[in-house]
């Protein structure tokens, strides 16, 4: 763990130069542009193997599906806030599609996947240098799809992960600070974590910790960061006079549907091939989500006497989170248990929020961090090597593998928690000092749509209502003649 300690410090010191880094990015970009011309030519020379069309088709689709999760998340979150903040909530997701893409193609992909230290990738792929249409090899596995396809499939993960954080800081963060936060967090928290877990020669990969589709990289990392940022930002001004209920739950349910749909690309796409393993991941993803949604609803039926739509949606997402790290390693019956337990845990965690008094607006910690931790550990309980031969660490505890895998899983969890928390404290502290991270009280009261974006989500007569004037062809009264002077 000492080497891990080192990396944090190294990154920490780099943080002080946040602005420098952004400028450097542009330089990289320019440099890359020059290399760009040469790249494909060189690539053509190498051309190790023709991509498999079926695998490529599946990962193209999976990339599109994961991209769609970001609008899905926007809706899931957007429906839960008040109408005066809906556009800001949506934009916190959508802007990640722009910002993280630029970071990823200039330097991010290289930091995450290129060979380098066990903790961070090197500069080989800066500006997508050497990332061409040919297949390639990652951590000793021959990948059967074009390198570029792999690159942008992974990009979609990098996009949604910081957007997850926005749920915790909803309705009160300055938009400019949010944009800078996710940019820096992506560089300083996401890239190292992704490299450790999935990158060429990554620390956790070599250790043998398993994370099929991002329980640590995506959910624990963003979940803990969300909690820390929510605490640093402070609570919303929720005087009792305002209706704090979700302004549009159908929107949240549509978002849930899109997230579930996209999650098939997220989890089953992580097989990076269209075969039995993708099938297993798809199957257990669906099962865990279904069971978790059902469990949440049953809890509410018992506790509140009424099963809520928001409860079902929350449970379903928690189930999707929990199965994410496990989906390429566990079978369907494990998925049932993982789904059922995550709803119990997340429900409990959300209930605790009241006691601790922090304002994690849309429960990112309770759903993503708690769900991610459970999923990572559950992998250590339920993994079966018969499902995925690439798991050379061993079976989970319940399948006779002992504590070996479980303890490695725990190390992954701890690293994600520490990395996320530390980086968030550092980045948010700097931004707080430099520019402030919180909207003013006035802005918060007036709504972030109006004050951060100069727009409103909904305008005009109550949702379109009943236009005046007589209907066409079916009028009961005198038609309204609009005289010329009315123009």
């Amino acid at each position, binding site marked *: 763990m000492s080497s891990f300690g080192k990396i944090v410090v190294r990154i920490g010191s780099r943080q002080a130069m946040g602005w420098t880094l952004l400028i450097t990015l542009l330089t990289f970009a320019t440099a890359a542009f020059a290399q760009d011309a040469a790249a494909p030519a060189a690539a053509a020379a190498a051309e190790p193997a023709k991509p498999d069309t079926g695998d490529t088709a599946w990962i193209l689709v999976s990339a599109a599906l994961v991209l769609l999760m970001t609008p899905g998340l926007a809706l899931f979150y957007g429906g839960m806030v008040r109408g005066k903040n809906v556009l800001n909530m949506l934009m916190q997701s959508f802007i990640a599609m722009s910002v993280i893409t630029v970071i990823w193609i200039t330097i991010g992909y290289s930091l995450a996947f290129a060979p380098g230290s066990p903790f961070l990738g090197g500069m080989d792929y800066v500006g997508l240098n050497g990332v061409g249409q040919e297949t390639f090899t990652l951590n000793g596995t021959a990948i059967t799809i074009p390198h570029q396809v792999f690159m942008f499939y992974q990009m979609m993960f990098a996009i949604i992960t910081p957007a997850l954080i926005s749920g915790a800081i909803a309705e009160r963060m300055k938009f400019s600070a949010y944009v800078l936060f996710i940019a820096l967090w992506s560089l300083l928290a996401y890239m190292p974590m992704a490299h450790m877990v999935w990158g060429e020669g990554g620390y956790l990969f070599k250790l043998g910790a398993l994370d099929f589709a991002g329980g640590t990289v995506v959910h624990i990392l963003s979940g803990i960061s969300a909690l820390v940022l929510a605490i640093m930002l402070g609570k919303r001004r929720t005087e009792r006079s305002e*209706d*704090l*209920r*979700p302004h549009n739950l159908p929107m949240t349910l549509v978002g849930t549907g899109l997230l579930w749909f996209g999650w098939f690309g997220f989890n089953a796409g992580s097989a990076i091939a269209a075969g039995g393993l993708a099938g297993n991941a798809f199957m257990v993803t669906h099962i865990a989500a279904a069971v978790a949604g059902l469990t949440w609803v049953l809890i*509410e039926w018992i*506790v*509140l006497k*009424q099963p*809520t739509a*928001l*409860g079902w949606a*929350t449970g379903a997402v928690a189930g999707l989170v929990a199965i994410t790290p496990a989906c390429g390693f566990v079978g369907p019956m494990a998925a049932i248990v993982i789904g059922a337990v995550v709803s119990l845990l997340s*429900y409990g965690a*959300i*209930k605790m929020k*009241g006691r601790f008094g922090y304002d994690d607006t849309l*429960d990112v910690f309770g759903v993503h961090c708690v769900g991610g931790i459970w999923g990572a550990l559950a992998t250590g309980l339920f993994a079966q090597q018969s499902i995925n031969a690439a798991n050379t660490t061993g079976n989970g505890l319940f399948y006779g593998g002992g504590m070996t895998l479980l303890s490695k899983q725990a190390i992954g969890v701890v690293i994600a928690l520490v990395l996320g928390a530390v980086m968030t404290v550092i980045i948010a502290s700097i931004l707080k000092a430099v520019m402030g991270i919180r909207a003013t009280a006035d802005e918060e009261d007036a709504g972030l749509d109006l004050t951060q974006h100069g727009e409103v989500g909904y305008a005009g007569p109550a949702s379109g209502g009943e236009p005046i004037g007589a209907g066409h062809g079916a009028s009961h009264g005198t038609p309204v003649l609009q005289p010329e002077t009315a123009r």
Partner: protein
Amino acid sequence: MVKVEALIRPQRVDEVKAALDEIGISGMTITEVRGTGKQKGYTQHYRGAEYTVNLLQKVKIETVISDTDVEKVVAAIVGAARTGEIGDGKIFLSPIIDAVRIRTEERAENAL
């Protein structure tokens, strides 16, 4: 002239409208409002957090009539809006000094 202002249950709007039509009152204006009185609200849970809703949906029907019609109109509204349960609503009567029909500039009772 008098303005009759009735605060009633949303489900009773058409009944009241029909009752008024029957006695020859066809001009009226309707507003969606929320109210509280003897009838109280209820609690909802969102992800376990409790939200109390105190203001219940009501509809305000306003109709300006001539003084002579007042009791007839009140009776019609009461007859149509009443369920006998708490929350049935109220009728308020207030004085109107003058009325103008915008289209014709007719005034007072002629404008109704």
